[in-house]
């Protein structure tokens, strides 16, 4: 068991997850907001935008991550240079983002739907503009739900990184796979798995804790 390799793998997984999550949220959060607001109950109902965006999101959600990576190989080639991305996990960011932004969009849409419609209407009646309702009412009232959704998202992105790691190399899950499948180091495999479990556990539990902590609805 090479502990340096393990450390490297943990670092790769964490970085891959963090960077993809950030970029995926930069795209997924606005997408979710538009999905919600273009729907019938939203601030600016628009069937065309809602249908188009909804279809795109559904398509990305229905293609498994592994296939997305393959589909995105030409794009990855253009960005990172043909062939040069093998062994560099960061070249997997594009398909990882593609796989996760749609998931995030639906999560965000769901969280916003949970804000009582009456609150939105009351804000309107108090003279709030649509933009103000999004930033000061919807996002702020949905914060607890958004945070627990955030934790769920990160955990599924950690799952996606296994595919990315498998194709491009790097990360804990691939390390576990290599040790257990190609190698004979079952102990090393279990150590890797243990670390994955610990990371997931920490993220999920702290997400839930934070969500409950900031939620002022139940006391």
């Amino acid at each position, binding site marked *: 068991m090479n502990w340096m390799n393990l450390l490297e793998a943990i670092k790769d997984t964490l970085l891959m997850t963090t960077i993809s999550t950030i970029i995926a949220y930069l795209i997924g959060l606005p997408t979710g907001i538009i999905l919600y607001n273009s729907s019938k109950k939203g601030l600016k109902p628009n069937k065309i935008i809602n249908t188009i965006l909804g279809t795109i999101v559904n398509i990305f959600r229905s293609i498994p991550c592994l296939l997305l990576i393959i589909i995105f190989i030409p794009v990855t080639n253009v960005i990172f240079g043909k062939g040069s991305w093998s062994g560099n996990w960061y070249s997997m960011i594009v398909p990882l983002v593609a796989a996760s932004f749609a998931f995030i969009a639906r999560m965000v849409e769901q969280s916003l739907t949970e804000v009582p419609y009456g609150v939105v209407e009351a804000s*309107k009646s108090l*003279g709030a503009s649509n933009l103000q309702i999004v930033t000061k009412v919807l996002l702020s009232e949905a914060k*607890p739900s958004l945070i627990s959704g955030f934790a769920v998202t990160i955990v599924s992105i950690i799952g996606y990184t296994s595919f990315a790691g498998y194709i491009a190399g790097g990360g804990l899950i691939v390390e576990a796979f290599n040790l257990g499948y190609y190698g004979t180091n079952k102990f090393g495999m279990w150590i890797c798995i243990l670390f994955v479990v610990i990371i997931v556990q920490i993220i999920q539990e702290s997400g839930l804790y934070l969500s409950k902590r900031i939620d002022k609805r139940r006391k």
Partner: protein
Amino acid sequence: MQILSIQNLTKTFESEKGIISVLDNISLEIEKGDIFGVIGLSGVGKSTLVRCINLLEKANSGVINYTRYINDKIKDTVDISILSNEELRNYRKEVSMIFQDFNLLNQKTVFENIEFPLTLSKGYKRNQEAINKIERLLKLVGLENKKKAYPSELSGGQKQRVAIARALVNNPKILLCDECTSALDPTTAFSILDLLQKLNKELGLTIIIIAHQMSVIERICNKVAILADHKVVEQGEVAQVFLNPKTNAAKSLIYSGHIRTKLHDSHLLKLEFNGDTDSPVVANIIQECNILVSIVYANSFVVDDKIYGQMIIKLPYYDNDIDKLKKYLNIKKIKYKEVSTDELDESFRSH
């Protein structure tokens, strides 16, 4: 001095069953300082009406004119349907609204909830002036010690008080109340109504209040409009409408739940007290005329500190007793009117 004039307002909704008319040619005149009640059974369009007033709902046709005053002099009158987005947001700051479900921001404290409308103005900063204003409002609604509480820690009545303070923070001229006491128990409901009355008196706030209970209108309104079949069937001063309901819809609302006795074959007399009567009328009739009367319905309410009331009594059987009674009422200057059982029956049956 007119502040809001609604003319021929019509609103329809499309549904699976076709086009449904919710407001049918509604016209109302609301004066500055009024507490104007709009009453009707559920589904008659009351809420839609009030939502049209602050454009949460757009009417299909008709005009709503809003008049601004400066020191009791007309500044301008605007047709609210042609306001630009920004003008509309400013209009909504002058015509604010409270709701049945309070609709507070659950993740914000009482203080932040009241502050919320202020934060919508460009370049708002929480300065001492704003803090003082919010604290004044907290005091006005009686929640000075709940400043840091969250809505989930408040009772229904307290939540509505926060909503009222929030609606007042931009110094509105009109407050729209959409069934604002319907989710509250009777005692709390009355305390909220009393608060609204206080705001009307102290701030000169014009209030439009939607309700389905007569008790709400009786308690605080000076004017009332009765909606039935999506139309205004009666409107005017509360005392006048309540003492002399003309339409069946109005009668059934006013007498609702009061008369349970079968009234077949009995002759009824309706007595009206217009604020001047101050003696025990029924007791006097029994003592002085030596006639036994039974009360079928009685109700009284206070408008502008005067007691108004009406009573429906069964007429005595013998003609000479009836004459005696009428003579007595004439002497005492109590207004009376014979009403037929059919007429009353009709309005009760619709319940």
